[in-house]
Every structure is written in structure tokens, then in C-alpha cells.
């Protein structure tokens, strides 16, 4: 496989096996992207042209009318977007700081109880989130936080994967750098802030991207604790469009497309970091 990239092989004029490989790759790319394409085509096609056979495979009647109708008939849409953004940003910032701090302590510092603490954390990595739904719901209800964004933000802090990822990354950094900084008169906070944080940029970037996307798309927990229409996040709100507008696919898909768009743009800009992050997160995860 590797050798095919060498010039001698590449000169070979035509190989059926290579052609087949291209065909498979292109066809699977189309299958992969088709639902995305269909999402936007349906969003751009007025509902009258959607409910017919044959369907418009290309948006022949493209217009933004669905989006206009969405924003007038589901006026809470903007607050859903705002809620999603606020929740994702708050959780991400929090994770970046706390996970890096803990990852640093677990990777580079000695202290009594270090291994036990770390093992307790690793052990909960495999506990499915569904186990804690009931007690978390009861606590949220007792604290009177139902329908508040805090009900989503606070439990969002509970994900130990970031600690694990940062520890794995910081372990690869040379300890001599930290010692050098201390000899130069840095206190512990300065060592963390001026040495560890800058060196961790790649890992922090990956963690930021994944935390943000994960919470932007999170569905089950917000569905459980948010029941006021105005307090919905985008996935919960978009799902509610389905029951509210039943067969008005134009409105439903306008809402879905608008919710997907920021992540798609985000991905196209930072695509390299996404793919690098998948690799980094999974190699030792």
C-alpha cells in the first residue's frame, strides 16, 4: 500500500485496482455527505415543493422563505442558539483550566494519594452517563435549578476524559523545563501559567474543540432538565420543531440546518485540529 506512493509505481498508466479504490472512496464520500446535502436542500426548498414526488434533488426552487417563517413562527430560536453558545463556552473554558491543572499535578508532581485519586478517576471513565441521570435530576430539582442554564452547565463539568488527556500529554513534556523555570525564580503558579499552559497548546486546542462540539450537540440531559421553550438548547429546540410543525419540513429543516451550520463552518476552518484531536484523544484513551 505504502509503496504505491513511490514515483516508479505512480508512473504506471492505468490499474483497474487503483480505479476501483478511487471509485469506492468517492462513492463513500458521497454517501457520507449526502444527509448533510439533503439537510440543506430541504431547508432551502419551500415546503410546497418538498411534499411532492419526484423530489427536487437539486434546490430548483431555492429560497430563504423557510428561514423567515422559522424565525417568525418559532421566535425562541435565537434564545436556543444563545443558550447553546453560553452553555458550551462556559463548560469549555472551565474544562480547559481545571483539566490542565489536574493533568499537570497527576503527570509531574509527587504527592500522597496521587495514584489512588487518579485510579478513582480512571475507574469512572467507563461508567455510562445514564447511571447518574436519576440522582442528578433529583439534585437539580431540589436545588430548584430546573429550566435554568445552570442545570446544564454544572453537570457539564463532570467529565474526566479531559484530565486523562491532559495528563497523557503533559507526561511527554520534559521535566527539565519546569526545573529550569523554578531555578529562574518562577513560583508554582508562574510555572503553570508560563511554562505548562503554552506547551500544552495542541492538547488544549483538541480538548477545547471536542468539549465545545460535544456540548453544542448534547441532547439527553438538556431534554430532561429544560422544559420551558425559552430555556431550550438548539438540539432540544430543533427536536421540538418536529412535534410542533409535524409535516412542515421546510421549517423543521431550516431550524436543523441553522443549528448545524456553525459546527460545519467551525469544522471546515479547524479541520486539521479536529482530525489531529481524534487521533490524540484516542491513542491513549
Amino acid at each position, binding site marked *: 500500500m505504502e509503496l504505491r506512493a513511490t514515483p516508479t509505481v505512480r508512473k504506471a498508466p492505468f490499474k483497474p485496482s487503483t480505479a476501483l479504490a478511487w471509485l469506492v*472512496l468517492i462513492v463513500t464520500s458521497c454517501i457520507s455527505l449526502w444527509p448533510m446535502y439533503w439537510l440543506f436542500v430541504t431547508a432551502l426548498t419551500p415546503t410546497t415543493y418538498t411534499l411532492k414526488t419526484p423530489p427536487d434533488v437539486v434546490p430548483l426552487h431555492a429560497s430563504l422563505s423557510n428561514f423567515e417563517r422559522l424565525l417568525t413562527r418559532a421566535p425562541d430560536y435565537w434564545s436556543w442558539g444563545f443558550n447553546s453558545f453560553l452553555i458550551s463556552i462556559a463548560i469549555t473554558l472551565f474544562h480547559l483550566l*481545571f483539566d490542565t491543572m489536574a493533568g499537570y499535578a497527576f503527570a509531574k508532581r509527587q504527592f500522597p494519594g496521587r495514584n489512588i485519586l487518579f485510579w478513582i478517576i480512571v475507574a469512572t471513565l467507563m461508567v455510562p452517563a445514564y*447511571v447518574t441521570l*436519576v440522582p442528578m435530576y433529583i439534585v437539580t430539582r431540589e436545588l430548584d435549578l430546573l429550566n435554568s442554564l445552570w442545570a446544564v452547565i454544572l453537570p457539564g463539568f*463532570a467529565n474526566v476524559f479531559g484530565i486523562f488527556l491532559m495528563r497523557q500529554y503533559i507526561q511527554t513534556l520534559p521535566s527539565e523545563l519546569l526545573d529550569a523555570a523554578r531555578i529562574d525564580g518562577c513560583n508554582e503558579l508562574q510555572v503553570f501559567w508560563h511554562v505548562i499552559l503554552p506547551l500544552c497548546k495542541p492538547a488544549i486546542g483538541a480538548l477545547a474543540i471536542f468539549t465545545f462540539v460535544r456540548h453544542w450537540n448534547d441532547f439527553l440531559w438538556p431534554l430532561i432538565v429544560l422544559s420551558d421553550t425559552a430555556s431550550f438548547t438548539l438540539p432540544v429546540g430543533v*427536536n421540538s420543531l418536529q412535534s410542533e410543525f409535524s409535516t412542515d419540513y421546510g421549517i423543521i429543516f431550516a431550524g436543523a440546518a441553522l443549528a448545524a451550520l456553525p459546527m460545519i463552518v467551525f469544522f471546515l476552518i479547524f479541520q486539521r485540529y479536529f482530525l489531529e484531536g481524534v*487521533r490524540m484523544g484516542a491513542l491513549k484513551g
Partner: protein
Amino acid sequence: MSNIALEKENLKRPSGVRGKIARFFKAYGWSYFFVLPSFTVFTVFILIPVLWALVISFQNYDFAWDGTWAGFSNYVRAFTTENGVFLRAIEHTLFYTIITVTANVLIALALASLIQGRSKHWKTFFLAAYYLPAVTSVVIIAITWRWIYNSEYGLLNYLLGLVHLPAVRWLSDPNLVLGSITLSTVLTVPATGVVLFNAAMGSIPTEFYEAARIDGAGPFRRWWHITLPLIKPTTLYLVVLYTIASFEVFEKVFVMIPAGVGDSAQVIVTQIYENGFQQFRYGLASAQAFVLFLMIAAVAVVQFRVFKTDVEY
């Protein structure tokens, strides 16, 4: 570093308990400072809720809590209630898991292998094309699939019509609905798998292939005897990853068939959701969640066995 600080302190040897505490803090205070925020959050939002959920699963807790212990009755009820719908949910989940995990791993393996010979730019292009849907909410993907599966105006039935096949009630026929949901997952390219296999294949030294080629091995034999054995850890990792994800399938089912189709597409988590948050049978829902936990733990144990030599914590 802290060790050096500790030794210095030892030389001075201030006496008494206070001195000891002061020395302890001087030596380790910063370490605990760095761990404290995460560990507090971890304790409050994971450790305590998990233990509490375990307690609830052994208590009578239907809507209101009366503090009485229920023994294993929630676990018994989990399997017997409503004519054992939970057992059928487990069956459906296993069906979904076996098919999607097999398909995902094989498809990812095939695509990653085919991608190897391409130039860097094409590699990036294909990886991006495969990964793009993964950044979109499952809710949105599921809504789109629901529309593709629509029995009247859906794209799929239109395509069937083109080849003169009768329309199919993809999401309302009780015999088909689970298969339709499974099919939608199979038709979603397993992007993480392709990315990881690609990384694993890329890290195999070229000399291995060179040597095999000199020995007269063709492309397929090189792939079979060199690539496959060397990416085995990635394969196993992905099997575990996809198995756990399939065990926890929920959003897709919930969004594609909001009203359900009888019990034909009940899976484990839809059951937990229904019992916990629609019927408010907290004890029962917690018991079912722990059954899911045990299933996942079993998979994880296998993972640790297999990975024993590779994984370092």
C-alpha cells in the same frame, strides 16, 4: 522538585504537630491546589451521584421517596415489568450493536486501507468528507434520516420507485423499524475508525513493505500479513469504542420514532428514559442503568485483558 523542598524542611525540623502540618503543606500544598478544583467537581457530579444511584436502585422510589429498602426487587422488576419489555430492549440493543460494530469496523478498515495510496491532499479531503457529519448533532442527522425514510415523500422510497419496487414503511412497520435505524448507522461512515486506522497504518515502517515486496509478496498479501497484524490494537480499541457507543444508543431512536412503534424499537436507554423521566420510577430506572453499566463493564474487562501489555496508565 517538591522532594527537594521537603528535604530542606527536614533539616530545619520544626517540632510538634503544627510543624508537621506546615511542612506537609509546604511540600504538597501546590499539588493539592492543582488537583482540588477537578476533584471537587468530580466528587460532587460523578462519584456521589454514581454511589447514590446504586443506593436508589435498591430502594422503593416511585415518584416519591419513602426511604424503604427494596432489596433486589427493582432488578427483578426491571426484567419482568410490562411483559419483559426490557429483555426485548436488550435483545434489540444487542442486534443493533452486533451489526453496527461489525459494519463500522470493516468499513473503516476498508476505507483506511484504500486511502493509503492517495496523495496527502486527497487523504485529507476524504477524511474530512467522512468526518463532517460527525460534528453535527445526532438529533439533526436523525431528523434528516427520518425524512429520507418518509414513506410518502421520502427519498429512499422514490429511489425504490425508480426501479419499480413497492414503497416501504421504513419507520412505521414494526418488523422493519429496528432494521431501518440500524441501516442508517451502517450508512454513516465510521469517521473515527477511518481516522484511527489511517494513523495506525501510517505509522507502520515502510521497510516492512519494502522487504515483503522484495520477497515477492503482492499488495494483498502485504496488507494481510503486515498491515492487519500491526493495526490489531487499533482494531480492538475500535471494537470496544463502537460497542459501548451502540449499547448506549438513544438519541437516534428517540428522534426518529418519537412515538415509538410499539416495543419494536425499544432499546436499553429508551427504557431507562421512559421509566425514569416519564413514569418517574426512579428505583427501576436506576436498576436498569446499572444493568447497562454491568454490560459495559464486561466489555471493558475484555478490553483491559486484551490491552494489558499495551496500555499504560
